[in-house]
């Protein structure tokens, strides 16, 4: 029975096929988790951690959790047909409702109202997180989504453009934030187009020589670029103030006619500004995705050789995607810089990977997906802060992402095209044939 597992069984049950084996694996995992989350040892008593976490009553909690999870998976396997049926019924009805004219705008309006109301109910700390963790990262993820989701380019140094936007803001608006400043100082709002252009230019400068590379090579080069920018920010004391970072960038303010408004300590005005920007960016990118440019990018992602042969200027389109992503990142940098203190540590590789995680977790290529990804990932992170010891947060976080990628690789709200690509790749059908054909004409 274990050998002839039906082909329809899920990936997990083919890997560990018998229920008993699965129980064993889960118990082993629970012991590891118990050990990792338990008290830590030190050099005089290196085994204290093991004693405190495994030879302790608390281990039963973990073993019990393993058994419960096992029972759930067992029940799930037995009930799978019914569950699939129910799910299909729910998705088709919701899809039918969504297809009804007028339901789309209403849904969007409802979501917008929620986005406006919910932060009012939050604690000040959560409001702060809604700006710096969720809002700004949603904006960053929307930009990276153009690069990864639309064009299919893996950019691991994306946060560099965020840094460029932030430092450009400090340079052009403040006489004190950095050791040097531009001769003419601007209102922070005027810096939006400047930062956008500088970041886009940096994107073109990085992309020009590197976008001829494919896949892994591009990832490595962009990784290097991200590191270079961070190291320069850290070491170019005379320009960036080094590791001390930039203090005192003026807050955003509007002085137009009778309107005189200054963003201050309160995070909510920043939040609403971000909501406006995110809505505008989503509108622009959804139009982009449906345009000839968006289709050209999709074509490049699916088969670059065929796209080029069909007349799509692949290098130019990839550069375009790169600079659109970079300028979005630059804008996020402006908001962040005017809101609070930053130093090179803000723009670490970890931040790049976090944005990447949000895009993949939320659903590559899907605008609502990546915004939801930012909310879920950063929200989880925020709530874990109170629930578990700070050092353990990454363990739970990593586990969440692993489970997600195993059971739902297309992300929370995948785009139609992306989920179809994944389905095609998994079925190993036509797309594989087309991929292997690539050797025929590729140089």
């Amino acid at each position: 029975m274990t050998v002839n597992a039906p082909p329809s069984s899920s990936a997990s049950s083919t890997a560990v096929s018998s229920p008993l084996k699965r129980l064993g694996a889960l118990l082993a995992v629970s012991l590891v988790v118990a050990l990792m989350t338990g008290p830590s040892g030190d050099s005089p008593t290196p085994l204290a951690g093991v004693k405190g976490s495994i030879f302790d009553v608390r281990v039963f909690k973990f073993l019990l959790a393993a058994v419960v999870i096992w029972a759930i998976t067992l029940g799930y396997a037995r009930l799978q047909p019914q569950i699939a049926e129910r799910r299909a019924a729910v998705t088709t009805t919701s899809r039918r409702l969504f297809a009804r004219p007028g339901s789309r705008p209403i849904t969007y309006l409802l979501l917008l109202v929620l986005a406006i109301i919910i932060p009012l109910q939050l604690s000040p700390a959560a409001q702060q997180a809604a700006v710096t963790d969720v809002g700004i990262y949603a904006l960053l993820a929307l930009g990276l989504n153009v690069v990864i989701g639309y064009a299919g380019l893996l950019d691991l140094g994306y946060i560099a453009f965020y840094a460029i936007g932030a430092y450009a803001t400090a340079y052009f608006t403040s006489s004190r934030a950095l050791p040097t400043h531009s001769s003419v100082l601007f209102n922070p709002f005027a810096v939006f187009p400047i930062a956008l252009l500088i970041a886009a230019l940096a994107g073109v400068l990085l992309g020009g020589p590197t976008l001829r590379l494919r896949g892994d090579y591009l990832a490595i080069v962009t990784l290097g670029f991200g590191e270079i920018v961070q190291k320069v920010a850290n070491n170019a004391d005379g320009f960036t103030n080094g590791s001390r970072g930039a203090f005192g960038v003026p807050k955003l303010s509007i002085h137009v006619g009778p309107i005189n408004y200054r963003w201050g300590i309160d995070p909510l005005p920043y939040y609403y500004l971000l909501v406006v920007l995110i809505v505008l960016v989503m509108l622009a990118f959804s139009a982009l995705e449906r345009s000839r440019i968006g289709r050209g990018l999709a074509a490049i992602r699916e088969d670059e050789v065929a796209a080029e042969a069909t007349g799509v200027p692949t290098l130019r389109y990839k550069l375009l995607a790169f600079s659109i992503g970079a300028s979005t990142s630059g804008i996020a940098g402006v908001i962040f810089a005017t809101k609070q203190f930053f130093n090179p540590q803000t723009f670490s590789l970890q931040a790049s990977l976090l944005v990447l995680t949000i895009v993949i977790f939320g659903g590559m290529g899907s605008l609502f997906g990546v915004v939801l990804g930012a909310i879920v990932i950063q929200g989880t992170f925020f709530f874990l802060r109170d629930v578990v010891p700070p050092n353990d947060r990454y363990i739970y976080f990593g586990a969440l992402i692993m489970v997600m990628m195993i059971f739902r690789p297309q992300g929370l709200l995948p785009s139609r095209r992306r989920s179809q690509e994944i389905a095609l790749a998994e079925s190993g059908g036509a797309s594989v044939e087309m991929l292997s054909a690539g050797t025929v004409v590729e140089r």
Partner: protein
Amino acid sequence: MSPALTKQSGDVAQPAVAGDVVLDVQQVTLRFGGLTSLDSVSLQMRRGSVLAVIGPNGAGKTSLFNCLTGAYTPQEGSVTFYPKPGESVAVLGKRPHKIARLGIARTFQNIRLFPALTVLENVQVGVETRQKSDALSSMLRLPNARRDQKNSVAEGFRLLELVGLRGKSNELAAALPYGEQRRLEIARALGTVPSLLLLDEPAAGTNPTEKAELSALIRRIADTGVSVLLIEHDMPLVMGLADEVVVLNFGKVIATGRPEQVQRNAAVIEAYLGAESEETAIDATDLPDVGSGRLPGTAKSGEPGESA
């Protein structure tokens, strides 16, 4: 390398074909290390004609296509393309998308569609390579972007109608049966408004009905004034369609002429059937079966001569 325009360099022979030439390939040589894939191949093509390139497997047919479309750059020779009468462009050394813009479109031997895009979107990608609206006007939905969008949908439907796929515009390209994928690839290529269409084994893997439809489709395309350069193994199809046939063997042109002339050519018969069969009286009508008698999947392996 600087490929000279044939018309301007005096030492190169004038096109042998009378009339309006659309493509002039002169002495093209392509080597991969020690392997010579194309050995000073020359051919001329009349505008609006259907030219078939045939030859045993490994003769260099697809290599020739890849040279014409910019995927390979041959070491020697020149390729001149005449988008309109009296207008000439050197093709070699240009990137594939530039060549596509000039008006040379192609299909692939192993179909290369955009599998997760819909049938209509596949064609739209081709159509939109001629459009001009930029990213900014697309993002802001400016009038020119909207106009382009409308035109590309209309033109996409027109081309799908032409290849008989209009009813399937919303399906995924990957979900189409093999023969329809071939036709979709042709529609995508036509979307770029080519004056020269290169088809790399369009009938491979299609059934007799599809083959007949395909033949009619290629005829229709040629009748609209698009010149068609065709690689094909299916001899009845070639003989029925081609105005002229070029035979390649081991990277060399061994015969050129009208289909019925080529069928009787001794060198061609030798290339296809092997040297020993020279004594056997060969009925020219036997020739067609040599290429088409094998399954498309196995076409890559084995010498064609052995099967005769």
